[in-house]
């Protein structure tokens, strides 16, 4: 952990400036908002280097033998079976991560193809899933989203093949288990890896292990002296050495104590050392390392203002890995301004880390300490009330954010004044993504407490958003909780709805059509019992999609046709249109191009400008898709001139709507048809354009293919 220092203008600095300028209330609020936005904008627009190695701390001290060890490991002859993988192990607070980051910086010149860094969150209740870790690494290695396979084994093999010819160092920080790490290790080739873990991971083969020890007294004193800077001279060497000894050579404890001294100049090192050694005598039943750390934390905690102490210990109940100031304000029961003050102070003292994304997190040990203080200082009734408050806030935020994407809701009218402002769809999207583990934790908590209505509301609100973020791993859980809540409430129609969402989850990658069919059968059953016509129709539609994936095309046609009829009867034109698209796909797969074309044409008509029955925003998205599919079918039927017209119109609309992935795909289809038609020059130009658009979405493989075709002789 780095010496704490807020990365933006501190709230209290800005507040003081406002005071000095004698601004009125409105001008003051604007200034504060501006400053806050300024520091957030700085973080948000920074190119988020994927798996980028963090900066090494400026005052890194000692560890020469350890650095030599990693250097040897990396340069050891690569005899067969030696994987060039090092594991740095040891208890918390020893600076495993800081060391691995420093070592990786030192080794950087040996890895021309880069150094990747990934936090595996091994000590959190939800360590990073292997599939997610692989996706992050693949993106960092330059794979485009659409190139990344949906299943873990596919990702693992792509990862191995991408590493085969590269000299890359992969730093896997805070690993949870052998199973989590194994697929992330470079196989043969020039790749190397450094792992940090509190565990020895005895099941990993071909790994050299280094047990990191505490800093020797001399180096510990040196580190403390470095943190203290100029004031170290006045504290004197003996007092600093005594403090270093009391910190047990643990860098985390040394940093906390050092920050404590720097930020509160009225205390000197000798006094602090005396207090620490008293504490140690008082608490000698604790384990040596934990004790030293808890004492170091205690020295900082005690001198916080009561309100900051409250924010600090209550943040221990935040369910996710990190949080922002808005959530800190809810946890602490303070205004957002007071939360900013408390967070600034906590970062200064090294009790919290602020990240480049404007979010805050605990070191694992500090969180344990905070939880301990919460247990000690707040009654169980207070803790329950806090959990309830935080859960309610998170779920109302998530539900409000989710409804941004529901055509029936859209921009929320902010009925709850305590919620953070989400002023655009992008902000809602971002909030839901970065807070996923927070609102999901709240959803679980609410479900465990039997708060069925809020659980169901939240799950229901995710319906449209889930489609926008379909690769997120947690939709199965969200809609399962939603289905259970609906069942508990006896709401059969909603129960069927949630079961249908679960069916949808299993029709998108990684597809599992068999499971999807089980959910549609359940949904059909529940919906039939309650006469929920719409849900009966949806169950038929999702069953049709699943059957098509299974290649059972006749059944798929029957099922989708039935869904289409039902939606037509109920007048749900949006859903009816979706059925036509699904039906068209089935017919096309069966080689029934004329009939397929008919469906896409009907779809085009319904999504046309004059058609009032369809929701305009959905019509706008449906139209280019329907045109493109129709064009493709025309091409398959050999009606190339018509195909070219349809596709050209579709591509124009896609460009307007910035649907680049689709646009690239249909540009390539168009180029093929132009070539078949003998319009070689045009075909080449369209291939070249397809290559460009594929490039912008990061699909280098497709881009290369189209570029090749653009220049090939015909």
């Amino acid at each position, binding site marked *: 952990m780095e010496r704490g220092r807020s990365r933006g203008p501190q709230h209290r600095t800005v507040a003081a400036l406002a005071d000095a300028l004698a601004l009125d209330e409105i001008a003051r609020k604007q200034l504060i908002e501006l400053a806050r936005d300024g520091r957030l904008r700085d973080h948000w627009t920074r190119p988020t280097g994927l798996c980028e190695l963090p900066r090494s701390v400026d005052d890194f001290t000692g560890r020469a033998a350890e650095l030599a*060890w990693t250097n040897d490991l990396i340069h050891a002859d690569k005899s067969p079976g030696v994987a060039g993988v090092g594991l740095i192990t040891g*208890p918390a607070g020893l600076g495993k991560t800081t060391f691995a980051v420093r070592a990786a910086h030192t080794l950087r010149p040996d890895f021309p193809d880069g150094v990747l860094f990934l936090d595996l969150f091994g000590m959190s209740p939800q360590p990073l899933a292997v599939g997610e870790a692989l996706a992050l690494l693949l993106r960092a290695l330059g794979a485009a989203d659409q190139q990344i396979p949906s299943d873990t084994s596919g990702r693992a093999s792509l990862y191995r093949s991408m590493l085969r010819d590269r000299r890359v160092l992969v730093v896997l920080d805070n690993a949870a288990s052998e199973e989590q790490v194994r697929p992330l290790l470079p196989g043969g080739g020039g790749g190397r890896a450094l792992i940090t873990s509190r565990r*020895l991971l*005895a099941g990993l083969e071909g790994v050299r292990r*280094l*047990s990191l020890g505490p800093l020797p007294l001399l180096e510990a004193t040196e580190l403390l002296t470095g943190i203290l800077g100029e004031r170290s001279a006045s504290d004197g060497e003996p007092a600093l050495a005594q403090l270093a000894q009391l910190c047990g050579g643990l860098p985390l404890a040394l940093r906390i104590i050092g920050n404590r001294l720097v930020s509160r100049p009225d205390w000197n090192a000798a006094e602090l050392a005396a207090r620490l050694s008293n504490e140690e005598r008082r608490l000698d039943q604790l384990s*040596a390392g934990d004790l030293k750390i808890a004492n170091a934390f205690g020295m900082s905690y005690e001198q916080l203002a009561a309100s900051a102490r409250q924010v600090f210990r209550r943040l221990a109940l935040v369910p996710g890995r990190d949080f922002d100031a808005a959530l800190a304000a809810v946890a602490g029961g303070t205004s957002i301004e007071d939360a900013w003050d408390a967070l600034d102070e906590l970062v200064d003292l090294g009790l919290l880390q602020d990240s480049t994304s404007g979010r805050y997190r605990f070191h694992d040990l500090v969180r344990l300490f905070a939880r301990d203080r919460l247990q000690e200082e707040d009654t169980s009734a207070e803790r329950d009330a806090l959990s309830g408050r935080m859960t309610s806030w998170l779920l109302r935020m998530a539900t409000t954010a989710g409804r941004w994407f529901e055509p029936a809701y859209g921009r929320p009218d902010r009925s709850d004044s305590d919620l953070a402002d989400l002023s655009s769809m992008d902000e809602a999207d971002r909030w839901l993504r970065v807070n996923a583990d927070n609102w999901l934790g709240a959803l679980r908590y609410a479900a465990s407490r039997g708060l069925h209505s809020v659980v169901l509301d939240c799950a229901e609100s995710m319906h449209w958003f889930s489609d926008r973020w379909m690769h997120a791993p947690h939709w199965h859980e969200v809609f399962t909780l939603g289905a259970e809540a609906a069942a508990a409430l006896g709401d059969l129609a909603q129960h069927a709805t949630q079961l249908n969402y679960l069916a949808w989850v299993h029709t998108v990658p990684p597809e599992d059509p068999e499971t999807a069919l089980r959910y549609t059968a359940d949904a059909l059953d529940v919906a039939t019992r309650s006469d929920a016509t719409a849900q009966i129709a949806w169950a038929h539609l999702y069953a049709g999609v699943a059957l098509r994936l299974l290649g059972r095309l006749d059944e798929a046609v029957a099922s989708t046709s039935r869904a289409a009829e039902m939606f037509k009867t109920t007048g749900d034109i949006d859903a009816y249109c979706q059925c036509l698209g699904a039906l068209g796909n089935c017919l096309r797969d069966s080689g029934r191009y004329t009939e397929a074309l008919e469906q896409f044409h009907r779809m085009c008509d319904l999504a046309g400008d004059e058609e009032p029955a369809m929701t305009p925003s959905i019509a706008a998205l449906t139209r280019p898709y329907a045109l493109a599919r129709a064009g493709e079918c025309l091409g398959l039927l050999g009606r190339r001139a018509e195909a070219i017209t349809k596709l050209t119109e579709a591509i124009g609309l896609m460009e307007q709507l910035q649907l680049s992935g689709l646009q690239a795909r249909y540009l390539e289809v168009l180029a093929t048809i132009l070539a078949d038609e003998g319009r070689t020059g045009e075909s080449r130009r369209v291939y070249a354009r397809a290559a460009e658009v594929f490039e912008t979405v990061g699909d280098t493989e497709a881009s290369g293919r189209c570029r090749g075709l653009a220049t090939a002789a015909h």
Partner: protein
Amino acid sequence: MPTIQNIVLVHGGFVDGSGWQGVHDDLARDGFRIRIVQNPTLSLDGDVAATRRVLDSLDGPAVLVGHSYGGVVISEAGTHPNVAALAYIAAFAPDKGESVSTLIADPPPGAPVPPILPPVNGFLQLDPDKFHGAFAADLPAQQAAFMADSQVPWGVDALGGAVTEPAWRHKPSWYLVATEDRMIPPPAQRAMAERAGSFVVEAIGSHAVYVSQPAAVADLIRQAAA
């Protein structure tokens, strides 16, 4: 809880069992039952007998741990039925017929020579002035001075005692390599660990790693007991 609940610690030459205190305290917090053998280091037979007496008294399986020459003792005594796993801490892991004397007979060129004084009445001592640097460079000078002054004389018979049936051939073993060891060269430690097929962890530490880094030693033992 791990299946193995007993830990038996065997010290090496020049020291007694009190150096294990840090390891003892660390493991005791996890509820392990720990016994420290006070082996007299006069002869291998005597030390093996002392160790076996402790093993006899146990009610279940144990991890048998040896430091330095203690590795010879556990290699011989480790065939005892109560030993489930072996842990070598910067220790000798002799094969059949080998002893400390044979293992240190041909030091690799450039390896540091332990400052062992010529035997007096059949006993060896380390040069007290060189003890800190050679045995315990990562301990505070004051502590190393105390260890130098409280040395246990090491019987030459103990150095000559050869192992008859090394337990590591029959039982899983674990090895902590001390990378800054100036008594037993780290390459020799790695080679013995590899020969024994041990699970290896390294620590940046002197020969007194069991005193200076009790957490690393305890971690390895916990793993062996898991």
